[in-house]
């Protein structure tokens, strides 16, 4: 009889501790416009289709190609989204009939993002994001935070306001699919202007992420290719292309 009580007590205590330690989580849902199929390599064009800005050089492309497909983990991603000044999350590209915006309706996800707000640096708020999921169900949330004056949204679209925001940080948060939903968040880069890192090239099976970051501001559009070790957050820059277009268009790539 004594043993039964001890076992029962141990089970309840274990459940209590796990409940306390369990991180918040959410399910990927269709309103995020998540791709149906997993892919090994992201479709990240070398040049911007609208303005012709260079994203990365052929040398960087060759470097990225040195990882074989067999060593890559499949992944799929949602559409990128922005957080509006009213606190809604809207998709950037996917539209409905008549060109109207689509919202993320997943309350668990929105609450997940809201939970970050108390810990953000003073004056900063969530700006943009994208959710990706690997074949082994690890979720990666790419998001940027920064500052903008809410009053400017009165007459300018939120997307433009965010593109001209300042003091940005770009992060990747990894959520593992285990009973405790263990999570790690790594800062990829910062900028005095707007920056976002949400175009993954690929993710290797040993958890090295290769990603394109975009920095935009007054008359500049810079692109950096990072490798991020998702085990410990260590980073390196593989390539950088700086596009400026104030007086004349100029591109300088490292």
């Amino acid at each position, binding site marked *: 009889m004594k043993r039964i009580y001890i076992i029962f007590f141990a089970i309840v205590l274990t459940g209590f501790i796990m409940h306390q330690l369990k991180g918040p989580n959410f399910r990927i849902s269709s309103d995020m416009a998540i791709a149906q199929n997993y892919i090994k390599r992201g479709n990240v064009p070398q040049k911007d289709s609208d303005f012709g800005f260079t994203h990365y050089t052929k040398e960087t492309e060759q470097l990225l190609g040195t990882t074989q497909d067999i060593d890559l983990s499949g992944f799929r991603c949602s559409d990128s989204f922005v957080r509006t000044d009213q606190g809604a999350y809207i998709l950037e590209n996917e539209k409905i009939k008549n060109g109207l915006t689509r919202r993320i309706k997943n309350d668990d996800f929105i*609450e997940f993002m809201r939970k970050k707000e108390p810990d953000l640096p003073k004056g900063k708020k969530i700006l943009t994001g994208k959710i990706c999921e690997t074949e082994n169900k690890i979720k990666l949330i790419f998001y940027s935070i920064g500052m903008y004056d809410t009053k400017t949204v009165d007459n300018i679209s939120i997307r433009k306001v965010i593109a001209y925001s300042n003091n940005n940080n770009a992060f990747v948060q990894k959520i593992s699919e285990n009973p405790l939903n263990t999570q790690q968040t790594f800062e990829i880069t910062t900028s005095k202007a707007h920056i976002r890192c949400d175009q993954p090239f690929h993710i290797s099976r040993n958890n090295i992420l290769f990603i394109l970051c975009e920095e935009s501001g007054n008359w500049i559009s810079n692109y950096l290719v990072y490798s991020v070790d998702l085990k410990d957050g260590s980073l390196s820059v593989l390539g950088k292309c700086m596009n400026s277009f104030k007086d004349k268009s100029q591109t300088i790539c490292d």
Partner: protein
Amino acid sequence: MFFSKRNLAVILVLISVLAFLLVSQKADLEIISGHTTEAEYKASVYNPTELQNLVKKDKDKYVIIDVRSKLEYDKGHVPGAVHADYYDTDALKKAAGDKTPITYCAFSAMRGPYAAYQLYQAGYENVSLLNGGISAWAEDIQGLNSNDPKVKTVFNHPKNIFPDREKGDYPPNQGETEVSITATKFAFEPSQIVVKHGQKVTLHLTSLDIVHGFALPEFDVEEELLPNESKTVTFIADRRGNFPFVCSVICGHDHSSMVGNLIVK
């Protein structure tokens, strides 16, 4: 003996279960405690499909009120919705009539909740909102009525649309008052503020948890409240009356119930 090994084990188990239950209920307790007199106000919220079914089932009981500007309403609105500006209590009451009102705006962030609260204070006990506003309806249901056949977007408006009020006459030398208001999920503290007619009012606004908003449209006040960052607004209470304020940033499931009143005597 009471404290036998067996009884101690039973007590330990019961304490563990109780602790587990208390932790699970912690979130609810945080919401319930610390509320002021507005705690009883709770607007119901319907998603577009729920609203469509509700109105289809009992259309004589409900009225949907579009509380955006007339310009926005004409460009496209929920089929069957009537229009009343969110700040116009008389127009809202006239639109509601003897039916149960359901309000909405673009996202149901500020104007929709404000109008719903106005109607509640005017005596409509069961007010509701369309969750996500017309943007949600346009996405989920898609059919919109429009008075403008060339409508391209239903969102073509300047964001801050405040009532156009003339400055009132107010007695001079009424001094100043300062009030600190905190915002947490889902309440302002204090939620009832009484000031004198003609007083210079300074509000120090702080969110203690997540991003909230503070909107007091009758005095042209709308501020985003980032966590632990105080904002200060100042105005003259140049009109007597009861002026609602609401949270203007969608902050969670009870966002539309986060309300208060500035009373100018």
